């Protein structure tokens, strides 16, 4: 085996990518535990579909669309990195942040109208799960927005540390996928 100081037996994958994948694996287990608890509790109780009927499916569907679009703009931001296009990178990162904020705004609107209708976290087990699951997801969205915003600020100084866009993208897609599970579980069943 040829050896220079920088040759490693390790793979050629970026350490950051390996790290993010392991982090996401633990996140999968976090939401997996929550979703599993929800499913088990739901199977053990009755009348939850009646409770779920008070949620607004159209609003949530629009929100799903917003989040999916933001995943697309995130992919385009990474595409801009690969093409060496700092302007495109900034534009698409900005759009991703904007769509993320839109998602949170719509979610806040949903929360307030539900609370106004008398459905709070203590109304019943379904609502406890609803607020906890969507709340934890919203915190993850917020963390993603902050990350993307930081990347946007960094991108104004050029294209250094571009691989971070890919890593943030992995996280952002994960947050998106979690919502894809939450939406039908909470709103549609």
């Amino acid at each position, binding site marked *: 085996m040829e050896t220079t100081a920088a040759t490693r037996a390790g793979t050629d994958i970026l350490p950051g990518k390996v*790290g993010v994948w392991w982090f996401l694996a633990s996140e999968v287990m976090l939401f997996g535990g*929550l979703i599993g608890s929800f499913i088990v509790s739901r199977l053990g109780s009755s009348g939850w579909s009646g409770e779920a009927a008070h949620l607004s499916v159209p609003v949530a569907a629009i929100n799903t669309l917003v989040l999916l679009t933001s995943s697309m703009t995130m992919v385009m931001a990474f595409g801009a990195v690969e093409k060496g296009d700092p302007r495109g990178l900034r534009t698409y990162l900005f759009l991703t942040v904007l769509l993320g904020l839109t998602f949170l705004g719509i979610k806040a609107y949903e929360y307030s109208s539900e609370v106004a209708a008398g459905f709070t976290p203590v109304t019943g087990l379904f609502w*406890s799960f609803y607020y906890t699951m969507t709340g934890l997801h919203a915190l993850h969205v917020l963390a993603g927005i902050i990350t993307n915003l930081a990347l946007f600020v960094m991108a104004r100084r050029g294209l250094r540390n571009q691989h971070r866009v890919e890593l943030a993208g992995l996280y952002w897609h994960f947050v998106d996928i979690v919502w894809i599970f939450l939406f039908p579980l909470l709103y549609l069943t």
Partner: protein
Amino acid sequence: MSDPVAVLAIPEASLHHEELGFWRTYLFSTEHKTIGKQYLSLGLFMTIVGGFLAYVMRWQLAYPDTEVPGWGFVGPEFYNVLVTMHGTIMVFFVAMPILLGAFGNFLIPLMIGARDMAFPRLNMLSFWTLFVGTLVLLASFFVPGGAASAGWTGYPPLSAKAIYTGVNWGLNLWILAHAIEFASFLMGGVNFLTTAITMRAPGMTFFRLPLVVWQLLTAATLFLLSVGPLIAGAVMLLMDRIAGTSFFLPEGGGEPLLWQHLFWFFGHPEVYVILLPAVGFVCEVLPVFCRKPLFGYRWIIYSTITAGILSFVVWAHHMFLSGMDPRLAMPFSITTILISVPFAILVFAMIATLWGGSIRFTTPMLFALGFVSMFIVGGLTGIFNGSAPADIYITDTYFVVGHFHYTLFSAVVFGGFAGIYFWFPKMFGRMMNETLGKVHFWLTLIFFNATFFPMHILGLGGMMRRIANPMQYQFLQPLQPINVFITFSAILLLVAQIPFAVNFVWGLVAGTPAERNPWEANTLEWAAPSPPPHLNWGEAIPTVHRGPYEYSSPEGPEDWLPQDRLVVARSS
């Protein structure tokens, strides 16, 4: 894509760095060896706290409701605090920081031939996060209402409402301290795995890694994959306590058993998170002092991974009498008995390594042998607990307490001390005293058994765990002399740690300077100076030519053959 070689070249470029100030060198250091020592100091400090709680608890059990010397009156409420905080501190703030935090950080980069961890700043962050978590936990003793008292397992409904225990902020802070600790070890685990996957030295294939690295990586993986559901549970528990939901409260339609499932889904893998690093230390120590290759290198790896996978499907053996569906008892009994197979293979591999070896009875070797023998006892009593028919009789008794301490205490104490005595020369560049070390070992072994073996008898006699006053029960009164005996053995077990403390401090300031390779061992860390300099290796990182356990090999002039030594074929 950026060029990976360029990324890796950064530490090389900073080889000739300017001197860092005091703060960056000793406190906010990003250097893996310093961080490892920080974890070790924190863990050793918390051992004193957890050990003191054990002493107060034992005195209360021997002489219920009397003044505890050095503490004062205990009473049932505070006894619950003692039980809870002793368990929490020892598992999360002693065992994990020392076995995983200290040794993982110190050993992984050195053993794989890296200059530091993959994410040095994240590494620093994970230690200081743990530090904050420790402060939060300690602060919980001083808030109104006192510290958490719902057991280290925090079962609801007891833990789900402040009025049930009379502890409000203490338990909230207890949950918070756990959350912070989990975040810390998540960051640490990601770092360990990424480092070992991407930063191995040339020639260091996965099947040339020292076993302790395998065990640490398996432990980190188990933690990463099992802690999520418990974090979800902790969020729900905190919601129950603060927001007034009733996830775990039956009166609001909740299910207390759900917590037990989430807790033990994490809890059983967590046992291996602590156990596997200790097994790893023993795997390193045994061949060095037997002067023989470790028996069944690959079998140990496969057994470790098998045990890790199985650990995700055994959790309900903690719940046979919890009121869960009794049809679940059988499958979980079977998986539990199955999981003893990989551990039996591990133990057999260790014994086979000893077989026919020319054994050097140094202090680390004695502790390693202590671990193997005590772990066998703990493993055997585990079969009783794992089989539902036997467990129905002994569950929640001192039999379980005895079993638990034979496995975990032996892992943390015997495994941990084997590690500390073995790597102390590398960590601090000085040798520890062998005579004091041997005194420490024999006293610990004797009083360990005197403390925990009688607990099995108490358990079979029906003594429930977590009771503050056994004298309240007529059927336990004849057993009280055993309780008194255990208490004095436990005190002597604590006293037996004084030779270690003396030896440790003495070794730090006045120990004989250690050579590069005082134990004549093969793994890469012994190729670095003692203690290794900043960035571990000089100009070039070592190249690996073989596996880690080539002892008594005919290839070299000595009876050991370091992983990085190039053997030139003899031409005769």
